[in-house]
């Protein structure tokens, strides 16, 4: 039973970077400048590196010949536990940056806690990942400021992106049963405790970006318990395409 909970927890940790990495991968070659293409690809690579660490571990936990790829690619849509935020599409660069920023701040807080996880494997992965994510935070925060404080158009676009994406932010802090259990076992943090710091950090950057926190948001939940947006099926259709079309082959 405990193994099943640990496996589920690793999915909760690994699915966010998987889907966000996938979204960033779509952008490669289509960004506003070569330098930003390279930067966003770097972030995607960091995320997939983390995914591989989590899912190699998950494969060991669940056994039965599972691999990082079978864990990553051979589940049904409702078995993915990523938050709704990361599956939101690359509408424009403002959405990309805003989505990144809202996730990065959370991700950094999470990893900081996971470094002292009682599970040594998870703690080791967090130690390795946190430096990468510190940079992601720098990158997305400075871009928030650039776009917010840039031109009228960029401020307007970022405001729109923030207004849209903010509704998905609180899901990150709403613990699932697995996360509550892991917090009790000292494997993961109590997510609700991270929320106030998150709000404060987001607010600070929003102010520096000349944006205001969206008011009266009806928050959306569901991804972490397998109920996703309409985008998810299409993401998986691409992500799983080869594994589904050509099952049981080596690549």
């Amino acid at each position, binding site marked *: 039973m405990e193994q099943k909970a640990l496996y589920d927890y690793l999915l909760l940790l690994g699915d966010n970077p998987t889907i966000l990495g996938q979204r960033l991968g779509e952008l490669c070659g289509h960004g506003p*400048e*070569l*330098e930003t293409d*390279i*930067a966003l690809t*770097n972030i995607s690579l960091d995320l997939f590196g983390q995914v591989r660490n989590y899912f190699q571990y998950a494969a060991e936990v669940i056994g039965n010949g599972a691999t990082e790829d079978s864990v990553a690619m051979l589940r049904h849509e409702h078995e993915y536990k990523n938050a709704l935020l990361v599956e939101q599409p690359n509408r424009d660069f403002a959405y990309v940056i805003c989505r990144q920023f809202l996730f990065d701040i959370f991700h950094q807080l999470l990893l900081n806690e996971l470094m002292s996880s009682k599970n040594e494997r998870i703690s080791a992965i967090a130690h390795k990942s946190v430096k990468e994510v510190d*940079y992601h935070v*720098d*990158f997305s925060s*400075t871009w928030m400021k*650039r776009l917010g404080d840039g031109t009228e158009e960029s401020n307007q676009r970022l405001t729109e992106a923030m207004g849209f994406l903010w509704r998905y932010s609180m899901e990150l802090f709403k613990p699932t049963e697995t996360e509550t259990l892991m917090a009790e076992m000292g494997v993961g943090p109590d997510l609700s405790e991270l929320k106030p710091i998150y709000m404060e950090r987001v607010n600070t950057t929003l102010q520096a970006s000349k944006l205001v926190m969206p008011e009266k948001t009806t928050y959306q939940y569901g991804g972490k318990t397998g109920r996703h947006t309409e985008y998810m099926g299409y993401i998986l259709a691409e992500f799983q395409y080869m594994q589904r079309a050509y099952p049981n082959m080596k690549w």
Partner: protein
Amino acid sequence: MNKDWPIWEIFIRSKNGLDHRHAGSLHAADAEMAIQNARDVYTRRQEGVSVWVVESKHITASNPEKSGELFEPAKDKVYRHPTFYNLPDELKHM
């Protein structure tokens, strides 16, 4: 108005104790972005531990047409090199 991000020259120190060396150029809107871009463009394969960025327009280069007068006079000043001085072979630690 020029809409190009300005061009920057990037200097990377590959490890502690070495000099920064010119790695190449890139475009960035400001110095902070130049540092981030330099990190992403020029240190993907662990090429560096420190980065300097200078906007290219701030670099003054010597005139290649004057390279004769600037650099050739040093050619015959061999007395600046240790091999100019003849000392006995048995002399040690010098």
